[in-house]
């Protein structure tokens, strides 16, 4: 492990003594201050903390006081105030940021470290919870735990990178690295199980995980990790032998047919097992396209249907491989496989649409955004990035993610259209990339996205797949505008907005637990649950399966069951899992790995009959977190037949979790 301790001149003991004296003084002032005046005193503490963070000795000094931070109100009034509401995924953004954020974040980690060490006993978190939290933070920030010395890592580490390295050295020292490897590998498995369209982050994690020292290369964890490392770096004999693209290309050109078949087979198996595609796979595929066409089905891991589809659309596939499949966009091979197995190329509108994307005139903005997506020296054009991205979305519709943006609605739309209206989705992509606008009719008037403003889309984090990069700014603005138009209607606006935004696949019946548009009062909860059973539970809805994904609203909670906010997901299907338990399978646009919603509700992404990209919960748990859904009013089953006991149990679960944040109107 690199030692960051030597990176800065160590301040003298006298300076440290003075700083700690001042720190104690200002901690006292923060505690004494009235809440309205506290922020000024907090700033003094943050400033001293920042200076202390400049050396390992200083950081330890700060850590010695970390058990006092909460009781002295250091975090009061900001997003760090309630330790139980902290999220490991947000830590990195703060640590690499500017202003006071990296300092507050560091102090917050130190306070959790003090909790994990058993020094702080007045926290909202238990020792184990703090330890779990920090383990997850380490898993998500391996580049700080095991720093490399590339220029890129230095730049991405933010202005406080050296302090961040010291912080993680301290965390690692205090809580150890024993469970980190397991943690990281299981995170990788949870994420890849969903076959995300955007794989950069998980690839990075796989590469980082290799840095974690593991004494036993034969352990189960090491073997699981090795599968992912190979999938990313080179899962075949030749790709391991010739990691350089140019050399691999030469090797492939000189290889005999058996060798090529072996390569194709090994790539395909690795891709199928992990959902991750190695860059060399693209080089092989390009070669097979030109020289050994009949090996393509093998290289793509196609089933019979996919192979037939490939045979029938050989010319289109050739064209798509030529344009979109390059080492920098190799992940699109997995998308291409999905497109073929779904038979999408036999749909005239899809083939025509994809062909159109190859030569489409892009607006300057779109071109710039797409080029920013590609790796340097990849040779991809903006159009090829867009075609590759479109293949990925069409091939794994449930792998679309919202990234770090509050735009679950837009991601849900893209996923829904990729499943059921691929031609329409391509039309939207064409309109947004060529015209820079999307039209959406709503109740007799057509809205154009480029004439609307949304403060939110200005801050869009572009760490997204190419299709989302192109579409989300428009979809988000349209969604905002529609919600504004219906804001005063006295009911949840999604009743009208969802069918208008997503299309006629959404049934017009709508039920919500909230009686007022401000969504503060829960009323008619029992009726709501009965109706969901009568329209969605196979025992009460005359056995109707869902025809299209249902855009439903969930109340998301943290691991303590405390309400965090509303979240848009799509209910994909309701079926018994392999063990016979009835489960709700849904698409969650946030693509998170492990999730814990408190009260033992943990959505799973694998192991319970999930298709890649699906999350699932037992039916009752799902219902207890639901606040709104659509239904077909002509397909209501037997609401009266739902047993009271089930209703009572679900209501109790709702009231004890997110329901604590709301007023409940007594049942009439």
């Amino acid at each position, binding site marked *: 492990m690199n030692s960051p301790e030597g990176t800065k*001149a160590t*301040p*003298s003991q*006298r*300076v440290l003594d003075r*700083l700690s004296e*001042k720190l104690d003084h200002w901690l006292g002032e923060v505690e004494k*201050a*009235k*809440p*309205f*005046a506290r*922020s*000024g005193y907090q*700033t*003094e503490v*943050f*400033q*001293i903390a*920042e*200076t202390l963070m*400049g050396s390992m000795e200083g950081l330890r000094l700060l850590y010695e006081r970390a058990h006092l931070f909460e009781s002295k109100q250091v975090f009061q009034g900001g997003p760090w105030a309630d330790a139980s509401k902290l999220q490991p995924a947000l830590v990195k953004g703060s640590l690499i*940021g*500017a*202003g*006071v954020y*990296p*300092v507050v974040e560091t102090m917050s980690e130190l306070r959790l470290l003090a909790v994990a060490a058993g020094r702080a006993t007045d926290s909202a978190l238990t020792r184990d919870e703090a330890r779990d939290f920090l383990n997850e933070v380490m898993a998500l920030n391996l580049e700080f735990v095991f720093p490399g010395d590339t*220029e890129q890592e*230095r*730049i991405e580490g933010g*202005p*406080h990178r050296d302090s961040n390295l010291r912080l993680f050295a301290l965390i690692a020292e205090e809580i150890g690295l024993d469970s980190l490897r397991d943690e990281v590998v299981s995170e990788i498995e949870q994420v890849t199980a969903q076959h995300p369209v955007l794989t950069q982050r998980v690839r990075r994690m796989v590469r980082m995980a290799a840095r974690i020292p593991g004494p036993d290369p034969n352990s189960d964890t090491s073997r699981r990790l090795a599968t992912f490392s190979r999938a990313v770096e080179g899962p075949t004999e030749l790709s391991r032998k010739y990691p350089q693209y140019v050399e691999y290309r030469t090797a492939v050109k000189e290889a005999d047919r058996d060798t090529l078949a072996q390569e194709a087979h090994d790539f395909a198996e690795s891709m199928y097992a992990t959902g991750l595609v190695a860059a060399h796979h693209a080089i092989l595929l390009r070669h097979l396209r030109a020289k050994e066409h009949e090996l393509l089905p093998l290289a793509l891991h196609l089933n019979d249907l996919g192979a037939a589809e490939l045979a029938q659309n050989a010319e289109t596939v050739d064209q798509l491989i030529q344009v979109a499949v390059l080492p920098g966009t190799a992940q699109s091979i997995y998308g291409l496989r999905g497109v073929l197995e779904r038979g999408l190329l036999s749909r005239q509108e899809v083939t025509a649409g994809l062909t159109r994307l190859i030569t489409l005139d892009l607006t300057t903005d779109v071109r710039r955004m797409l080029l920013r997506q590609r790796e340097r020296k990849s040779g991809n054009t903006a159009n090829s990035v867009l075609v590759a991205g479109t293949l990925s979305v069409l091939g794994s519709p449930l792998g679309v993610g919202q990234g770090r943006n509050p735009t679950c609605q837009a991601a849900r739309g893209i996923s829904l259209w990729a499943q059921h209206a691929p031609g329409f989705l391509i039309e939207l992509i064409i309109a947004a990339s060529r015209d820079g606008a999307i039209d959406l009719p709503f109740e007799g008037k057509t809205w154009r996205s480029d004439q609307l403003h949304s403060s939110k889309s200005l801050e869009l984090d572009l760490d997204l797949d190419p299709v989302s990069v192109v579409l989300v700014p428009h979809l988000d603005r349209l969604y905002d505008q529609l919600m504004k138009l219906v804001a005063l209607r006295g009911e949840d606006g999604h009743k009208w907005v969802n069918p208008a935004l997503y299309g006629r696949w959404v049934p017009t019946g709508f039920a919500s637990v909230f009686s007022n548009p401000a969504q503060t009062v829960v009323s008619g909860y029992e009726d709501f649950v009965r109706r969901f059973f009568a329209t969605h539970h196979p025992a009460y809805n005359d056995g109707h399966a869902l025809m299209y994904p249902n855009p439903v609203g969930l109340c998301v909670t943290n691991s303590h069951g405390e309400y965090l906010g509303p979240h848009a997901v799509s209910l994909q299907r309701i079926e018994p899992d392999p063990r016979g338990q009835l489960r709700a399978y849904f698409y969650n646009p946030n693509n998170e790995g492990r999730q814990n919603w408190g009260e033992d509700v943990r959505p799973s992404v694998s192991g319970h009959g999930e298709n890649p990209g699906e999350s699932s919960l037992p039916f009752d748990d799902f219902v207890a977190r639901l606040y709104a859904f659509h239904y077909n009013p002509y397909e209501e089953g037997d609401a009266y037949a739902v047993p009271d006991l089930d209703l009572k149990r679900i209501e109790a679960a709702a009231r004890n979790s997110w329901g604590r944040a709301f007023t409940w109107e007594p049942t009439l």
Partner: protein
Amino acid sequence: VSDDGRDDTTKRPSAPPRTALLGFSIPAMEALDRVGRPFIAVVPKEFEGYMKEHGIAYEVWDFARLNERSGDLAKRLADRGIEVAVPLYEETVEWAGALNGHFRDDPRLFTRYLLFRDKAMMKRRAQMYGIHVGVFEEAESKADVLRFLNRVNQALVKIEGDVADPVHLKPLASAGSVGHRVLATPEQIENLSDDEFPCLLESHLDGQEFSCEVFIHRGKIRFLNINEYVHLGYSNFSPAGPRLQKWRPQIREAVEDLIEAFEIDDGMIHPEFFITDEGKISFGEVAARVPGGHIFELIESAYGFDPFLAFILCVDPRTTEEELADLFPDESDFQCYSGCLMVYPKRRVVTRVEVPTSLLEEDYYERHNLFVPVNTKVAERVGFGNHYGTVYFKGSDATKMRDLLLEYEKADFYVADSPSERQDAAS
């Protein structure tokens, strides 16, 4: 309760508020809260959420608009028991005048406060009362500025080839040094933009510049702080060192002249003067709100009393002699010199803060609040305003204080990490 009805409300939170604070200032609210004296804060709309969140009594008011509806605000405040308005920011000064005029039924108060809002007018007033000022003129155009520069230098009997004496341009109604420009060449004048007019032009005054923070009650000086500018807009310290302090009697006289000229009964003023080595004092300008340059913080640190509370109590004519006596220490009784350096990035793009270890080792170093700016692109500086952070010093020797402030002004606290720089360092 004293017999003339001036009951002491300071220690009774249940008493109705009688003070309105004009503008949002946490230290001012804190000062009153500490002594249990209720108040109403009159704040711009954007602070409404904050006031609600913390349950602080407030009125929302837009100080930027014209003064014509001050009657409404006065009535709203009077209905809630307010009798005194305290101006915390430059743009609230005339509102304080208008409101206090309403509360005391004395329209002339407003006009008097207006003097503080027009730098040309205040100079004229001072001049009319026999106070020494430099040559000044109002200017409407660049041609006016050029003529003023030429006339001043002609009067100084400069001939072609001599370096011209600069002139100063200041907006008529801006706080402190915002928009202050020093002009010495026709090119600099040509580069002025039209929206800088009308403005005030002044000849350059030689000598040491300093400010006074004068706490006045019933027309008498209750406390006079002299604040030494080391480099205007960058550094100052309080109280001033011996070089200025030896002129304290003369400075006090100059301030008394000003109080008389401006007919000030209650409140605090913050005038700026120049003094030559021979003790000749010239008046620069005067403000009637909380001074910039963190001077209140410096006073508190040096003298140990809360200048915000002092200001607010002085504005209130009903404050008692005892309250004032309790509050103010002897002017010569300071614990240390307290100074600050206002730091402004020297580069166009900054990505990191680097505090020299020598500063941390320095005995006089107190604290700083330099954080990495959220926006890496540095904003253009307006006048001497908008510094990015401040470094505070404290110590017993005025000369050393001065030297430190000048020394660290040269330090590059805000640095940029460009990839190429890093590589140079690594190789």
